[in-house]
Every structure is written in structure tokens, then in C-alpha cells.
């Protein structure tokens, strides 16, 4: 409770500070300019049936708050350093446990080659690195097939390094931007996956591991058309304790899971013409894991794609819509297969989530916006892998369709 009060107090302080000091966002330290930026967002969700995103949304829930504060400074012409603290509460997730969102030293040797190290935001598709930054997006919730907000920890950052650069192509062929990275991913135990596992009586105490990959994007000669591809490989280990599936009445036993093959492929495109922006992305996430020290294996195949369009009607008003499609299959082999039947039929509501969305965004000024959004979902995709719908907050069982109203406001400075 105290953490909640402190968190909300901090969010309110950010809000007030932002309102008061919007023009003054920097100060001098050792003759260097230090920039200060922050944001806070508050949402409310009401659903007609299933509870969503670990909140009690069928009654209406405002347990949807996040905020961040960062400092950055250009130490030399080529060296930029900075760090951001991030905190959130999303239903049962986050619970106002602050985290170091990113902390980087970025040295750019040339436009075509730079390095950054520390805790670095992961480049994966169009919006992985900015998915928390509500004020950058037209939509209150990005397409959950690609950017599940309950699972943000899985892709948001790595402790390691990137190399990156931008190369102009000859003959007017546009330019290429690349990023390659490697590091250690570490999930909060207050994130979606540990919460999902708690429904099976497991208590995960650590979850993370090696993450490496690359992103290549091409700003094509066709003005405002961007296309790109990302690849990420992972070697993840999770540890904790769990109910013994063969003897549920006995004491808890050690639980472990480890990647055998764990990768993501993502392809994307973005096109802007006048006031209209169209995005589309496809992601496939394949995970083959050893469970309980190799006594069993699971083979999960998560696929998602969306097409979205956003149109700016005037300076203060934007509207948007997207269609997001998510499917998941999972097969368990070995000793645990008796407890987890194969989930391979993606036509079942338990193995998919199709979401039609309309939204409106009003910018009250450059720093403050309001959003109203409707989600019309078919399926709840909660069977073999979490995707917004959790059994713990739906003890009565799931219904196949969910309509959600999302209201959100955010402020940044």
C-alpha cells in the first residue's frame, strides 16, 4: 500500500513538475548541459466480459499507471550519456517497483558507426523501444499481437551493447540503418510471464539470459516508405519453485526452464503520405524449452501481425484504427505431456486473439494528450502462453468475445 501511495505521489509530482516547468528542461553541471525529461500516463479500462491485462476491468479499472524520468548529457561532441527510471502499475503487474529502464553511454565515431553500452533499449521492429512512451503513439494500446504490454520485459532492454549506424546508398537508393546487439535480458518478477506461471502453482524467482540480434531498416527512395527486418535470439533460464505435478499434495519442488531454441523474426513497413500513416508488422516467436531440468520440453509458436492506419484531422486531433491478429500453439513432450494436451488449433478462442480497434487522440497542447479507444476482440489467447488474459483474474472462465473501452491521458516534458 505504501509503495502504491509513493508511486502515485511520484507520478503526480511528475505531472505537476511537467505542467510547471515545461519550458525549462535543462541545467548546467560541470559546464555540461543536462537535459531532464519525464512522462506520466494514466489509463482506465472497462470491458464487458473478461477481465483484461490483470485488472478487474469488467468493473472498470484505473490500475493502469506508468511514469519515467530521465537525465542525459552530451559529454563530448561524440559521447552522450544518460539514464531513465521507469515505474508502473498495471493491475497485478509492476506494482510500483521502479526499475532502471535504460542507462547508456553512446559514442558515435561516424554516422555509419557508433557504439552504445550499458542497459540499452532493444531495437526490434518499429516500436519495441518506444512501447512505453504513450505520448509518441496515436493508440492507447499498441497492437497486442506484437507489443503485449503485459510482457514488455521480454523485449524492452538488455544489459550489454549495440553497434549501429546509417549508410547512404548511392544512386539515390535511400539509406540503410543497422543495429546489432548482444546482452543480458532480465525480467522483473512482477511481469506477465511469472504472473502467468503462478496460475500453475509455480513461483518464479529469476528469469532472464542472453539476448542478441540485429535490425536492418531501409528508408527507400520512395519518400516516406520504410521497410525493415529484425531478428533476435535468446538463451533464457527461469528458476523458482513449483507444485510437484505428479504429487500436488507434497512439498514444493525446484522449478527450472531453459531455452533450447528461442528466437523472434519480425518484418515491418511504414508509409506516410500527407497526414496519413500506415504501419504493418509481422512477428513470429518460436520457443522450445526444457522444463523441470529437461524432464519435459515445450514447443511454442506465437505469431502475430497487424495493419494500422492513423490520420491527423487537424493539429489537435488524430484518429486511427488497426486490425491485430494473434495466434499461439504449444505442444509439451515428455513427462508433463500428460498434464498439458497439445494446443494446436488456432481457430479456438483459447489459441487466438483477433482485435479490431478504433481510436481518437486529442492533443490539448504539445505536452498533454487524451485518448479514447475501443477494442473489439475475438478470442483470449491465454492457453499455452500469456497474452493479456489471465485465469487468476478470470476464475469464472473466459468468454470468447471481449469489448473494451480504453481511456488514457499522458503528459511529457
Amino acid at each position: 500500500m505504501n509503495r502504491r501511495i509513493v508511486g502515485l505521489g511520484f507520478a503526480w509530482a511528475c505531472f505537476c513538475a511537467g505542467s510547471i516547468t515545461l519550458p525549462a528542461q535543462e541545467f548546467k553541471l560541470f559546464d555540461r548541459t543536462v537535459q531532464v525529461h519525464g512522462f506520466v500516463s494514466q489509463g482506465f479500462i472497462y470491458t464487458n466480459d473478461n477481465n483484461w491485462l490483470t485488472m478487474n476491468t469488467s468493473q472498470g479499472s484505473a490500475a493502469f499507471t506508468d511514469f519515467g524520468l530521465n537525465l542525459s548529457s552530451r559529454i563530448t561532441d561524440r559521447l552522450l550519456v544518460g539514464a531513465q527510471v521507469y515505474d508502473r502499475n498495471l493491475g497485478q503487474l509492476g506494482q510500483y517497483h521502479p526499475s532502471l529502464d535504460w542507462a547508456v553511454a553512446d559514442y558515435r565515431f561516424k554516422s555509419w558507426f557508433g557504439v552504445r553500452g550499458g542497459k540499452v533499449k532493444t531495437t526490434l521492429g518499429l516500436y519495441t523501444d518506444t512501447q512505453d512512451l504513450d505520448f509518441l503513439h496515436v493508440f492507447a494500446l499498441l497492437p497486442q499481437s506484437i507489443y503485449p504490454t503485459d510482457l514488455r520485459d521480454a523485449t524492452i532492454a538488455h544489459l550489454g551493447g549495440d553497434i549501429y549506424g546509417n549508410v547512404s546508398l548511392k544512386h539515390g537508393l535511400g539509406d540503410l540503418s543497422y543495429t546489432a546487439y548482444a546482452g543480458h535480458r532480465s525480467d522483473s518478477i512482477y511481469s506477465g510471464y511469472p504472473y502467468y506461471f503462478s496460475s500453475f502453482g509455480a513461483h518464479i524467482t529469476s528469469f532472464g539470459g542472453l539476448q542478441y540480434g540485429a535490425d536492418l531498416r531501409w528508408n527507400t527512395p520512395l519518400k516516406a516508405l520504410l521497410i525493415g527486418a529484425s531478428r533476435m535470439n535468446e538463451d533464457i533460464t527461469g528458476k523458482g519453485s513449483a507444485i510437484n505435478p505428479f504429487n500436488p499434495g507434497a512439498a514444493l519442488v525446484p522449478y527450472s526452464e531453459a531455452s533450447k531454441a528461442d528466437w523472434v523474426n519480425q518484418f515491418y513497413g511504414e508509409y506516410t503520405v500527407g497526414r496519413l500513416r500506415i504501419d504493418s508488422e509481422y512477428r513470429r516467436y518460436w520457443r522450445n524449452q526444457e522444463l523441470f531440468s529437461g524432464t519435459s520440453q515445450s514447443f511454442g509458436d506465437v505469431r502475430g501481425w497487424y495493419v494500422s492506419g492513423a490520420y491527423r484531422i487537424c493539429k489537435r486531433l488524430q484518429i486511427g484504427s488497426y486490425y491485430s491478429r494473434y495466434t499461439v500453439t504449444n505442444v509439451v513432450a515428455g513427462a508433463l505431456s500428460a498434464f498439458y494436451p497439445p494446443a494446436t488449433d488456432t481457430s479456438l478462442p483459447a489459441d487466438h486473439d483477433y482485435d479490431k480497434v478504433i481510436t481518437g487522440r486529442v492533443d490539448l497542447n504539445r505536452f498533454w494528450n487524451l485518448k479514447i479507444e475501443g477494442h473489439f476482440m475475438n478470442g483470449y489467447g491465454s492457453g499455452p502462453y500469456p497474452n493479456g488474459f489471465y485465469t487468476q483474474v478470470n476464475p469464472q472462465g473466459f468468454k470468447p468475445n471481449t469489448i473494451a473501452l480504453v481511456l488514457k491521458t499522458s503528459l511529457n516534458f
Partner: protein
Amino acid sequence: MNNYRLLPLVAVVVGVCCLGYALAGEVKLIANSSVKADTISPSEIRRVFLEENNSLRDGTHVEPVLEKDGAAHQAFLREYLGRTDDDLQTYYRALAFTGRGSMPKQLGSDAEVVAYVAKTRGAIGYVSAETSAEGVKTLAIEDARNSAERKLITRVEPAYPETLKQLKIGGTVRLQLTVAPKGNVENVQLLGGNPILGEAATNAVKRWVYTPNHSRTTTEVSILFDPSR
């Protein structure tokens, strides 16, 4: 009422509007005196103001400075960045909130931009064309089309330094030439290659002559020094 009487008034209004639009499209790039370059290409402008690069081809560090709003700002965005102001602000915030860049300086008027650029090492900004650029240097914006159209009329071959030739030291020298409207080469920058060969090449290309043009242009040339010849 005779509608024809309104025609001159309409013509004046339309004329004034067109003039205003034309003026809005006229911006010039200014830089602090520490910036060595005299010219800048549209692609360099884009990269510098989108923070994809913080130095020019000659290695000079630059720091972009923007205006918050106004005709010069709108014209600059339209002509060189191809983005609306809202899109650009979103872009900068994405950089600042992910640790990949910082918000550039944004000032309220041409006068403020000139004053800031004048006192800040490496600063580069834009102002409306009629603004006094006292205390700063004005960068010529290269026109790729004109560069391509200009033909070399007189070419002088560089003298190969005898010592380097005997030592079989050769290679390619890359130079950036600024060609005056009359066609003479008024400035040469060494972009790459052996510095001694570069000096020899510079001495030669300063005597080159191109076809006349209505404005100053720049072009890159590569000269090969082959010791086996």
C-alpha cells in the same frame, strides 16, 4: 453591384498571398564561424537535423538549432526534412526517451537563432533569407542537379611528387571542390588520401575551370596517382 470592381482587389490579395508563400520558402543555413565548411548538401542537412550525424564531411562537429515555429521553420521542414512539426517533435522525443539522442535547441525567432549560432561553437541553424547574418557564416546549399550539369572545360593534371613516385607511393586522393558561378574553383577540401599527394592534387584542381552557373556549386573528384605509369 458590379463584380468586376472586385477583380483588382482579389488580384492584390492573391498576389500578396503568393508573395508571402514565396518568401516563406526562402531560408538560408547559417553556422558558427568554427564550422569550416562553406557549403552543405541537402542530405547533410537532413542527417544533421535528424541527429543521424553530428559532423560534416570535413569532420567539423555541428550542433543543430531549430526554430520553434514560423514561416522559416515551416519552409525548412517542408524543403529539407519532409516532415511536419508534429512528426519532428515525436521523432526527437523518441530519441530523448530511449537514450539515443537529445532534444535539440529550439528558439523562438530568427534573431535568437542568429545570436545563439554566433556564440556557440559548431552551431548550425536556419533563418529566413532576409535575416541579417552578421556574426555568423552563411552556408551555400549545394544543388545536386546543377553540380551534375556543370562540365569541366579546363583540366590541369597534377604533378606527381618525384620522391613519392620513386618510393612507389601512390593511391587515390578525394577532393571536394567549390566552384564559383563563373566556373573557377574557389575552394578545395581534402576528403581523403595521402596528404602530400593531396597537396599536389589541390594545386592542380585550383586551375580547373567549369562551365558558368547561376550559383556556386560543389562537386567531389577523385584523382589517381599511379607510380607504375
